[in-house]
């Protein structure tokens, strides 16, 4: 467990270094605010970064898709800013709908490793810690809070995660258990190490149901090398082989490294989701 967490942290640090100086960020529109939310489940505070679209206050009847961006500000990778900026630019062009972007952040950014990693041992009852609990934080605390406070179309929830954040994306995707709908209608899992536990969680899902009514977009970075290529291909092939009912799935290998994969993963993924990808 320690080795996996260290690995995820190391992978993220090298991702930062590969980006180098401040990346070229898409320009944002709308308003951004930060508000605290205390979680009873993990007994800790979150800082919710919220981007509201321009003109949000002008139409009190309009509801917006929700994008939950994990790792909003981790190690200067600007993931929240990238997603909010992409939505701003593409919505202004009329190519995507406007959306509310929420980034659950932390006073200590390394807290992400508490929330995103798979618990050891994994149990089909999902009664462990780590992402078992974070799933409940999202479902029982963060989503109800933001959907009560802001005008959100709860049928259009999108989850985006990179690296360890993508671990949480895969887990949350495959935690779906009918008759409940998936927690998110779409998800982007951007470039992470594919542990054996991913295959376990996916297998448990397949044993419960043959449906997965959502859009899923995954990516890997070429320069992560052969280990990721082997495991990523195996997971992609397994997902495709299930022929899940209702699933729209696409994946892409990006000719870059771990840090360079962030923006194209988010951009291509949101294009797949908003652009009617099948």
């Amino acid at each position, binding site marked *: 467990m320690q080795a996996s967490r260290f690995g995820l942290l190391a992978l993220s640090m090298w991702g930062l270094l590969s980006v180098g100086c401040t990346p070229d960020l898409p320009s944002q529109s709308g308003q951004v605010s930060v508000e605290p939310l205390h979680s009873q489940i993990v007994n800790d505070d979150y800082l919710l970064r919220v981007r509201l679209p321009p003109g949000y206050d002008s139409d009190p009847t309009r509801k917006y898709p929700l994008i939950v961006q994990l790792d909003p500000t981790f190690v200067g990778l600007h993931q929240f800013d990238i997603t909010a900026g992409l939505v701003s630019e593409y919505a202004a062009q009329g190519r995507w709908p406007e959306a509310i972007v929420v980034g659950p952040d932390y006073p200590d950014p390394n807290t992400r490793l508490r929330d995103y990693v798979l618990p050891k041992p994994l149990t089909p009852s999902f009664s462990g810690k780590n992402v078992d609990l974070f799933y409940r934080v999202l479902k029982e605390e963060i989503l109800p809070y933001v959907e009560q406070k802001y005008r959100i179309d709860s049928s259009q929830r999108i989850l985006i995660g990179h690296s360890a954040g993508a671990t949480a994306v895969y887990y949350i995707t495959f935690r779906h258990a009918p008759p409940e709908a998936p927690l998110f209608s779409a998800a982007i899992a951007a470039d992470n190490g594919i542990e054996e536990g991913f*295959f376990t969680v996916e297998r448990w899902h397949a044993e419960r149901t043959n449906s997965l009514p959502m859009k899923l977009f995954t990516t890997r970075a070429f320069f992560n090398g052969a280990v990721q290529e082997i495991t990523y291909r195996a997971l992609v092939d397994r997902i495709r082989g299930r022929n899940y009912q209702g699933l729209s799935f696409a994946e892409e290998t990006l000719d870059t490294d771990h840090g360079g994969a962030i923006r194209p993963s988010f951009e291509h993924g949101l294009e797949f989701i908003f652009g009617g990808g099948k």
Partner: protein
Amino acid sequence: MSRALPIRKGSAAALCSVLCLTLSATGSAQEPSIGIPSGGAESGHPVHVRLDAAATYGIGGQSYLGIDLKMNGYMPIWNTRLATGTIDGGLVLAYGNGPTWLAPWIDPAQVEGATHHISLLVRIGHTFHMGSRRRASLGFHLFAGLHEWISSYSVLYANEGVSGSSTVKRSLLVSGGELDFAYRFSERVGLYLALSAPFPYQSSYAQTIFHAGAGLTFYLR
């Protein structure tokens, strides 16, 4: 035909003259000292030759250990009482191996293999040879050339029936800078230290962030 014959005779004569001058110059020129001599005074601009051999540690997507071999010619271009400056040029052959045991996040029960870095570079720069005996030297060099990145692994997730092996590779043009230090403790051998980093920066995974080396330098000429 008749006009070509005098031209050929003239060319042959000129060639012979050049050859004779060269031979006479070579014959009368002294062999340069091994390395920069004490005091730095030398006649002409002799080219000295040094072979640097260093064990290296580098870091990028993961750490690696390797070896650098650098063959350099260096020619004095200025001299003062306490230092001589040389202009340097040469070739670098480098290899780095990134095994799984240098990547603590990798479970060796599940993953086998390594990442390989192979470089063939051209290197130019300037070195300060310092001290009255010119034993210490500090060099600043730029390098550029070919870098081959190879990632070759096999994976086994036994509990989930996942297994496979793969090799991915990429050839890159790389460039960067290097700082090196040598201390000559005998006529032919010295201590060698180096620190280098690529720029412009491409990707830490393929090109690395920096590497450091320590070893010996051999004064050949």
